[in-house]
């Protein structure tokens, strides 16, 4: 996978099991966002294939079956819109009238009481939950979350990890990127370590063992 003249990803191959919670970790510039955007159908791989339940992934199939939660930097938090308004934008992405309940994701993420607040009146953790709620509006079975735990406080991070585990338990497949290594990594079923290529793949304990030389920072989401 190339971005411009630069090689962003090379030889990355893995399979996600349905109903699993997988962390995608690696340093800044490792290609995590590129991989998620490629899986979401926003970028076309230079070589190689992506399949979903045996079918080649096309942009329209990706739009139906995968939902991408972008990094918080991609969102204009000062836009004049309420939490409910932001979540309702998930319906625009679905492009189907009558589809997609807005109140249910708000309830699920504990945002019902904040639904009429402006986005810039929320804490960082609440903003991330609102963004996740927007991602959940569409009934997509695969969720791709790009650094959902970046720049939020530890209690909010723990809450988000619990929500992700609940979504996994409800049968959804989650791939969650992070550039942090920490004890939160144990919340995941599986960890993929990426630095333009796949360096390790396995359980959190296995990955720590395999890449023992890497320094583990005791903060972060995954």
């Amino acid at each position, binding site marked *: 996978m190339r971005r411009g003249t630069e090689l962003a990803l090379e030889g990355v191959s893995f399979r996600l099991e349905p109903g699993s919670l997988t962390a995608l970790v690696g340093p800044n510039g490792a290609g995590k966002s590129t991989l998620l*955007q490629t899986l*979401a*159908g*926003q970028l076309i791989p230079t070589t190689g294939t992506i399949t979903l339940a045996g079918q080649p992934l096309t942009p329209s199939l990706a*739009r139906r079956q995968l939902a*991408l939660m*972008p990094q918080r930097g*991609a*969102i*204009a938090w*000062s*836009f*004049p*819109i*309420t939490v409910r*308004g*932001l979540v309702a*934008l998930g319906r*625009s*992405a679905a*492009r189907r009238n009558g589809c997609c309940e807005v109140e249910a994701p708000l309830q699920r993420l504990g945002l019902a009481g904040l639904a*009429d*607040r*402006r986005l810039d*009146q929320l804490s960082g953790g609440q903003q991330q939950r609102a963004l996740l709620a927007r991602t959940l509006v569409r009934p997509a079975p695969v969720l791709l979350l790009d650094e959902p735990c970046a720049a939020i406080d530890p209690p909010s991070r723990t809450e988000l990890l619990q929500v992700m585990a609940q979504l996994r338990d409800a049968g959804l497949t989650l791939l969650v990127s992070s550039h942090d290594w920490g004890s939160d990594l144990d919340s995941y079923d599986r960890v993929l370590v990426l630095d333009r290529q796949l360096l390790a793949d396995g359980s959190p304990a296995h990955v720590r063992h395999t890449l023992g030389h890497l320094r583990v920072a005791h903060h972060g989401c995954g």
Partner: protein
Amino acid sequence: MCATPSATCGWPTTAVVDPVLFWWGLPLGLALAIGALAPLAGTLLLVQRRLFLANLISHAVLPGLAVAVALRLDPALGGVLSGVAGALLAERLSRGGAPGEEADAAVLNTVLAGFLGLGVLLIPLLHIRVDLEAVLFGDLLAAAPVDLLRTLLALAAVLLLLALRYQQLVFLGVDPLGAASAGLPVQRLRLLLTLVTAVTVVSAMTAVGVVQVIALMGAPALLALGGATSLRQALFRAALIGMAITALGFSMALLPAVNLPPGPLIGVLCLALLPLRAWPLGRGR
């Protein structure tokens, strides 16, 4: 209530318009229409992080205007085409240049200065007469019915854009990448915004001038966005603030004690609005 025109109801019995009413009613109507139009367009640009277009297009209208005058076409048409061309050229050159906002700003400034310079050069080259002062700063008291009609048409176009594309504009403003990946016609929406900006700038030519309109697009929008919980609410507030500013500017200009041109006066009133941002409307919600 009068259902039909009659002398007792006060409707005019002839087609002759009261000259006093015409003298100040037309400019006031134009001032109010621009007061609504410019902040609407400005708010849309601001939330899309594209307010630079107002500055760029306001300078880029001059060459087209000069050519249109030379060809005996409607100057507004030439101005719109030239403004859109300037905006598209700046975007094209920005993409092709070095990455980074500063590089883009350098391209933008060069294009706007270049278009302005070209416009000034075309005036002697084409042997035409253009009152540059009126173009840049407006001459509200010289307004003609066609100016009001043009502005009302531009206002209708903006309202139509909002009616048809409101949700898409919100999505694009909140999350441009998400809007693109959801299949929204991002480039088309941005082109429509560019067109609306050009039409707004040209419509404001008579009322406040193509330079002063930048203030009228920015200041009411900034004030209106504070505390607004929806784009619709911000747009409504911005239009109200803009109409109040232009009405005040026009009224002050008529006062014998003031007796100043309304365009620059409206620009100064917009400047006076900025400190009010510390008290955003609807704060504490």
